[in-house]
């Protein structure tokens, strides 16, 4: 877990999307919270948590895979690719073009990475969002990968871990994106029938349609310290109520205080907490009461209508 899966940039495509100010050769990183300059290697060794102020910086989905046992992860449904079902065009850009640019920049095909892996040799299904891919907005591919991950975990009789960060449903896919909230929740009902838990980790930032669907009804909900979590964005609320919101509004700690999450766990403790939780579920003496119903016919309705 010390070294993250790091990919070297292959493209020379100069992308103008303002990345955080970086000092030559990415050697040093400035903490966005306390402005401390940190040696990148040291930061990565510390799970991208600032050693000075313990600010939890964002990690890519591939970096999050480092949470699992080394070499245990295998990706699933990597062959699903996003399309442009509405032919969505804004004055600045087209959705198709935006997808292409994001794919180039992140090396991901869409904002959700799913697979199977283990934590201390206990197998789990896993789904991780990647905020750098169009704000990890939930579209068809995000939904389909996660739905399949839930169905697969139910079939394999293993728990499902989701790591959630998102700006909400992907507007460029319209109501199709909105319906992914229902689709993923549907698929998770199979996991519940199989008697396996869904553990959700909410990381910074998590908003909109993702907060308002599957992670908020997970069996265990864990939030990262300081993560912004909410339904409506802060700016929107401030506009409507015409007041400044208090400091600490919509943070992980705010969610804990209001009873919306089970715990706030720092990144360095996460693996340990998950280990303990998983051991509890695995140590159940009796098989769960609810028996899985007839096998879901995956082939039938899992066909995308691209």
């Amino acid at each position, binding site marked *: 877990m010390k070294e993250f899966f790091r990919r070297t940039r292959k493209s020379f495509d100069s992308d103008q999307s303002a990345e955080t100010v970086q000092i030559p050769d990415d050697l040093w990183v400035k903490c966005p919270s306390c402005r401390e300059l940190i040696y990148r290697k040291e930061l990565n060794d510390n799970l991208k948590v600032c050693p000075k102020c313990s600010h939890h910086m964002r990690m890519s989905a591939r970096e999050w895979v480092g949470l699992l046992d080394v070499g245990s992860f295998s990706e699933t449904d990597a*062959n*699903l*690719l*996003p*399309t442009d*079902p*509405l032919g*969505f*065009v*804004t004055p600045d850009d087209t959705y198709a073009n935006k997808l292409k640019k994001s794919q180039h920049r992140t090396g991901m095909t869409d904002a959700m990475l799913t697979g199977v892996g283990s934590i201390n040799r206990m197998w789990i299904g896993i789904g991780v969002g990647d905020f750098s891919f169009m704000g990890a907005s939930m579209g*068809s*591919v995000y*939904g*389909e990968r996660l*739905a399949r991950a839930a169905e697969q975990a139910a079939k394999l009789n293993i728990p499902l871990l989701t790591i959630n960060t998102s700006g909400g*449903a*992907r*507007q460029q*896919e*319209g*109501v*199709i*994106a*909105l*319906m992914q*909230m*229902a*689709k993923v*929740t*549907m*698929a998770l*009902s199979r996991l519940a029938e199989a008697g396996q838990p869904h553990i959700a980790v909410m990381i910074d930032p998590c908003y909109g*349609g993702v*907060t*308002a*669907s*599957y*992670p*908020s*009804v997970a069996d265990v909900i864990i939030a990262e310290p300081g993560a912004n*979590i*909410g*339904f*409506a964005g802060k700016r*929107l*609320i401030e506009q*409507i*109520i015409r007041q400044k*919101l208090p400091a600490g*509004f*919509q943070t992980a700690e705010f969610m804990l205080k*209001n009873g*919306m999450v089970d715990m706030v766990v720092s990144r360095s403790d996460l693996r340990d907490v998950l280990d303990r939780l998983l051991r509890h579920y695995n140590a159940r003496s009796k098989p769960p009461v609810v028996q899985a119903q007839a096998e*879901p016919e995956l082939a039938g*309705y*899992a*066909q*995308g*209508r*691209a």
Partner: protein
Amino acid sequence: MEQLDTPHVASELTPWDRVQRARHPQRPHTLDYVFALCEDFVELHGDRRFGDDAAIVGGMASFNGRTVMVLGHQKGSDTRENMRRNFGMPLPEGYRKAQRLMRHAEKFGIPVLCFVDTPGANPNKESEERGQGNAIAEGIQVMTTLRTPIIATVIGEGGSGGALAISVGDRILMQENSIYSVASPEAAASILWRDSARAPDASRALKLTAQDLLELEIIDEIITEPAGGAHLDAQAAINAAGERIAVHLEQVCALDLDTLLHERYAKYRSIGRFEEQQNVLLRV
């Protein structure tokens, strides 16, 4: 508005015209449908946890000779009532009331009729504190496995997650001039066009009309409205909706519960457009 009131050929209307009609203050709202279509309505109140939200109404009624649970977003028809009902934008307790009534319906084997008409869930400080995200998520979750038929009808605005939280059903019907959108055209315009005045453009791009959504295979049927829109002849609009709801209700009530739930699963599981690449190398 003058222009809108003259009868048009339906296809001439722009998506923005539909948005205006869907939001028209004289358009019939949930309780108008309930009082006109049902008998012996008994309204039930409160979520048993925090309070009662007037933006969502619900209760038992007799529809077409059958006892049903009706629930829906409730907008007001004048300013005072709109203030009381918060323009049909529910708080978490509204959604939790809806869930309670759905569970109630399941317990007694009563089908559920949902009427969708909201700009969206209420975004304010209190609703965040009481878990708006969780309230909507639980609404969706309850409906995915509720062991009784559910028919959702969009009668005005279907505003994003706030609408979805009471509209995951075995059938989704939309009136001709209703809309259902991932975000309000104004919000989408201010994010993607950086100008909320571009809402007419956003409303076209978002594909939010009933006609678009039937084409995208999201909804099951479009209910025709009287010429010019439901606000011009509320009674005719209500009757037309009642007829179609009755037909679908009989269809879903005829199914046994396992088949019903299997079909509901398949219905939602199949929504999504993506390309599935076949990896030839793996097959060699």
